[in-house]
């Protein structure tokens, strides 16, 4: 009987594991990074993820949301989740602090193709909170031995006060990241670019189109125009990956909410190779 019961438990996709907030780092007003550790040590050692994947974070009594994994190790500092306050669940999360309990299930979805692009020059294109799922890519690229290939980050935010992870920028560039930031509304001390992210793609230099890969995450309009710029500059659609968002209730392909054409964003995405999703991404209101 007990073996049967526990098999049933493992089967229930809705069962999330208890986690605790090991640390909270406030990025700026309305955005914080939560480091989550499993209560059960066995979970911490068995849990693995690939950059680009996401977890479902559950605040009991409030609801459950999809949040990208922004680095960290389950068995050490905890899994990093950078969350922007949007509505109900994210607001409740913002009221929680170090030591508080919630639940997590995952990882879900597709990942950035890091193996496939190991020897390529990677250009990361991010807007606002869209940098969250790319942080683990930056870490993986800068940690790994890949002397021949470069990593570039083109990052845009509304203003210099809301640049995500800016305290880590110096460390990243010190380890070889080419970083260019742009803002819509600069203040007096701003020395970076001003304007939309696609302009950075337009002005990009020193990257051979034949041997590069683009990973994009951010508002869909930003991605659309950035892709257009990249294509105009000789990059092929098969060299471009985008991370998409759709309403998600289950993350396991059962609730139907996240469909985009034939794709379930929760399973076939969130990371798509551009040529595969383009026919649907370009249709308004699909």
């Amino acid at each position, binding site marked *: 009987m007990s073996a049967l019961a526990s098999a049933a438990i493992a089967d229930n996709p809705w069962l999330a594991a208890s986690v*605790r907030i090991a640390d909270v780092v406030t990025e700026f007003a309305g955005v914080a990074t939560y480091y989550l550790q499993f209560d059960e040590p066995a979970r911490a050692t068995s849990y693995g993820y690939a950059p680009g994947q996401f977890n479902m974070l*559950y605040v*009991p009594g409030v609801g459950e949301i999809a949040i990208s994994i922004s680095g960290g190790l389950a068995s050490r500092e905890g899994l990093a989740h950078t969350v922007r306050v949007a509505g109900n669940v994210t607001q409740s999360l913002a009221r929680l602090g170090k030591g*508080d*309990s919630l639940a997590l299930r995952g990882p879900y979805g597709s990942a950035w193709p890091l193996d496939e692009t190991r020897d390529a020059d990677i250009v990361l294109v991010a807007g606002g909170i869209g940098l969250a799922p790319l942080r683990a890519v930056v870490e993986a690229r800068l940690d790994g031995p890949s002397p021949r290939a470069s990593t570039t980050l083109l990052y845009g935010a509304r203003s210099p006060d809301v640049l995500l992870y800016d305290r880590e920028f110096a460390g990243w560039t010190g380890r070889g990241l080419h970083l260019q930031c742009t803002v819509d509304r600069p203040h007096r001390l701003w020395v970076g670019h001003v304007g939309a992210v696609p302009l950075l793609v337009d002005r990009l230099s020193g990257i051979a189109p034949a041997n590069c890969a683009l990973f994009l995450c951010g508002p869909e309009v930003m991605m659309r125009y950035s892709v257009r710029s990249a294509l105009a500059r000789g990059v092929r659609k098969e060299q471009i990956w985008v991370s998409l968002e759709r309403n998600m209730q289950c993350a396991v392909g059962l609730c*139907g*909410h996240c469909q985009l054409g*034939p794709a379930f964003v929760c399973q076939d995405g969130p990371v798509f190779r551009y040529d595969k999703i383009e026919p649907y991404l370009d249709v308004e209101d*699909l």
Partner: protein
Amino acid sequence: MTQHDRESSPSMHETRLLDKQDFQKLVDLLWDQGYRVLGPTVSQAAIVFGEIRAIDDLPRGWTDEQSGGEYRLKRREDDAWFGFVVGPHSPKQHFFPSRVTVVAADRDGDAWRMRDVPDDEPPVALLGVRACDLAAIAVQDRTFMHARYSDPIYRRRREQALIIAVNCTQAASTCFCTSMNTGPRCSSGFDLALTELPDCFTVEVGSPQGAALAALLPTRPADPQALRQAEIARQHAVDDISKQLDTNDLRDLLLNNLEHPRWSEVATRCLSCTNCTMVCPTCFCSSVKEVSDLDVEHVERVREWDTCFNWDFSYLNGGVVRDQIRSRYRQWLTHKLASWVDQFGVSGCVGCGRCITWCPVGIDLTEEVAAIRETPV
């Protein structure tokens, strides 16, 4: 078992006869074996699934008249027990309940713990399932049991269920199972399949469970005449079917016509009322909400049917992706008939015609497809 010795007990795919006067024995036997028997019964001016304890619970002598936006019960001239087609309910109601708790969380000191909530629904015997609905069950099996993740509630209910199908002997003007290759003949997915004759049923065995059940019933070997009569009765349903859906290249036709003007045209008629998705035996979309006690110590996560016709179904970042009825109808039809094939390897439509009957303004998906086919962009 005296008159039914081993030699005459039914085997797989064998067809036997069960006299109508012995039909109550089948119902009793199912209850005795612990099944809750659900079958067609008249309720609220329609034939819906309800508990069947006695043969008097069946819609004997009733039939239905269906057309776009219309459903009417009528007295039959004869006393047929299953002389109607599908109503607003389908087996989906049982296997994928419209509201059910999927998981719970309890506060334990300063930690939250999640737990399974066992589904204690007794096993059911579904009586009177039609060919299109057998096909619909197979479609939902792919979604809930054979994809990467499976739904434990669906799986348990499905694996425990016994299915006694009934072959259609007539069709409604809304039926198009022949276009979808799903009917009207029940060909697989049942434990027993019946065909109604004036005084008896032919009983076809479709599974070992069905064979075991039939062995306990006072059936007799089917004579060639009865078999021929049953064949003629089933042919009536085939001959009755008038509606057609041309499925040739249908997936590509729809996905290549996402900007067809017909989507705007149908949007002027569609009320986005959600009826079609509620009655459709394959639609599977749902949402989960929180139900907690007052001090939020115990929380249940309750799954409810949802539909792509609800305005906030595609809610995202303070906005809604499918804000217009045009995009919601397009999502429904292209999912059903096109992207379902990419996702699950079959069409999401079995041709039961329910969405046509229960659409308050009588929108007919076969006509929408035909209009797009006539003038592809």
